[in-house]
């Protein structure tokens, strides 16, 4: 049937021409190429007519430009996903909003599960809602500039929500992310938004107003940066912790001297005191060490960076307490050991020496009526890691001081 077969050169020419005319998808190029070739081969009778027939065949494919076919294809292809995407966007947005609110309430009330909810909410905002929002919205705007503005806005949103997550979880790098987010807002998004909007008389008024609002909101956020751990507070806290550790060392040395100077007749009971004290301190150190290993999973914790370490309260609480907020055996063992030591001191050295370890009714001193809580909960439940270490070291100091008061 085909009287004429196009040469390779002619086929290449057609392919390049439809590419030049805006057909980008390879599949579409192949389809159109074959179709055009079929038509030409049917109508052509001699070599000379090629150009003319090609032009006339091609012109039947469009109203104004060949590109229309590509655009129509793109439209049909994206339209298919458009509704599904919008649905996912709305659902993830709703989920995040609810999870944020509930998570915040849980966090404020120190109920378990708060961290997980906030992490889920922020992950769904940053990695589902905002990216889809960007894709859907960029389909709706035509100009490249507007797409850029949307891009920067989305980028700011993602950085901002992730930096909040880092902040509340006390993960390292939070401040850098936070400042990067604000940087994107102030130096990329806002100028672009402002200068694009102000050129159009229709949007001028609104642009100025929105820009001022964004500037105010951004400024307020920037002020908040100062809230988080200034260097002075960190240093003060660090040196007070070092002081605490030094006190423990000093008292230990003093106690050792006292043991040596003690009368021979008392050596027996002093030995028992020393053993009991050391046992207790070992138990406390063990909890510290195990906790260290548990928390340090994936993050190196050394004596040096311990003091300034900002580990949220969630992880240590998981280690020390069960799901029903009941302390695990670690703390109970220490508590009973403290009671044991106190009983021994009261019997052997007389009451009054063990005031620092006032444990007879479950650590009365620290479990007072006002707080209506237990020793374990006040010192360890939902307490950030560095405070837990501090509390454990304070306990060691108290024990050492009690020991020192007893040695005769």
């Amino acid at each position, binding site marked *: 049937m085909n009287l004429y*077969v*196009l*040469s*390779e050169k002619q*086929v290449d020419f057609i392919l390049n021409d439809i590419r030049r005319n805006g057909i980008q*998808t390879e*599949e*579409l190029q*192949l*389809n*159109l*190429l*074959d*179709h055009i*070739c*079929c*038509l030409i081969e049917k109508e052509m009778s001699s070599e000379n007519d090629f150009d003319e027939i090609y032009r006339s065949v091609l012109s*039947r*494919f*469009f*109203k104004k430009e060949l590109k*229309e*076919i590509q655009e*129509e*294809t793109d*439209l*049909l*292809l994206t*339209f*298919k996903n458009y509704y599904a995407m919008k649905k996912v966007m709305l659902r993830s947005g709703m989920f995040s909003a609810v999870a944020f609110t509930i998570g915040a309430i849980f966090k404020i009330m120190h109920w378990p599960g708060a961290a997980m909810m906030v992490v889920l909410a922020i992950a769904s905002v940053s990695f589902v809602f905002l990216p889809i929002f960007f894709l859907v919205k960029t389909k709706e705007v035509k100009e490249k500039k507007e797409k850029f503005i949307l891009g920067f806005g989305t980028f700011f949103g993602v950085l901002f929500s992730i930096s909040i997550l880092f902040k509340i979880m006390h993960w390292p790098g939070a401040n850098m992310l936070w400042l990067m987010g604000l940087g994107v807002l102030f130096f990329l998004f806002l100028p672009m938004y402002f200068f694009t909007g102000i050129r159009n008389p229709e949007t001028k008024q609104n642009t100025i107003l929105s820009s001022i609002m964004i500037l105010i909101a951004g400024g307020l956020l920037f002020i908040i940066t100062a809230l988080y751990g200034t260097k002075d507070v960190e240093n003060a806290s660090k040196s007070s912790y070092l002081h605490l550790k030094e006190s423990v060392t000093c008292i230990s040395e003093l106690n050792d001297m006292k043991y040596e100077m003690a009368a021979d007749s008392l050596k027996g009971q002093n030995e028992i005191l020393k053993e009991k004290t050391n046992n207790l301190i070992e138990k406390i150190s063990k909890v510290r060490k195990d906790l260290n290993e548990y928390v340090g999973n994936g993050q190196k914790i050394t004596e040096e960076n311990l003091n300034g370490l900002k580990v949220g309260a969630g992880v240590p609480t998981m280690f020390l307490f069960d799901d029903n907020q009941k302390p695990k055996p670690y703390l109970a063992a220490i508590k009973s050991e403290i009671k044991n030591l106190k009983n021994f001191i009261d019997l052997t050295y007389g009451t009054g020496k063990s005031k620092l370890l006032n444990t007879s009714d479950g650590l009365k001193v620290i479990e007072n009526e006002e707080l209506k809580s237990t020793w374990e909960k006040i010192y360890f439940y939902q307490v950030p890691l560095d405070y837990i270490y501090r509390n454990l070291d304070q306990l060691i100091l108290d024990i050492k001081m009690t020991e020192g008061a007893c040695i005769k």
Partner: protein
Amino acid sequence: MYSSELIKGTLKTIILKLLSDSDKMYGYEITQKVKELTGGKIQLTEGALYPTLHAMEAQGILTTDVVNVGNRIRKYYSVTDLGKKTANEKVSEYADFIDTMIFLLDLKPKVG
């Protein structure tokens, strides 16, 4: 020849029916077949045909086969299982639509 609006709404149905009745077809063949079957009354435009074919492929209604033809490549389209189901639905929906239109526009079928 009918107006493009009339054809636009039925393009998918026409393609699905044609492809269900044959093993596989390529774009040019589809346009020729429709022209031949309708005596030139319906002529599919390339500008409408190919975007629809690509969209239907993306939806999983159609599948393609690539064959080398001389110095170019030809894409043959055929219906998937999902496409066969869709074809039946579309055709019966259209038949129902025609009945309704006949009633609505008060068109008396010519008695032979």
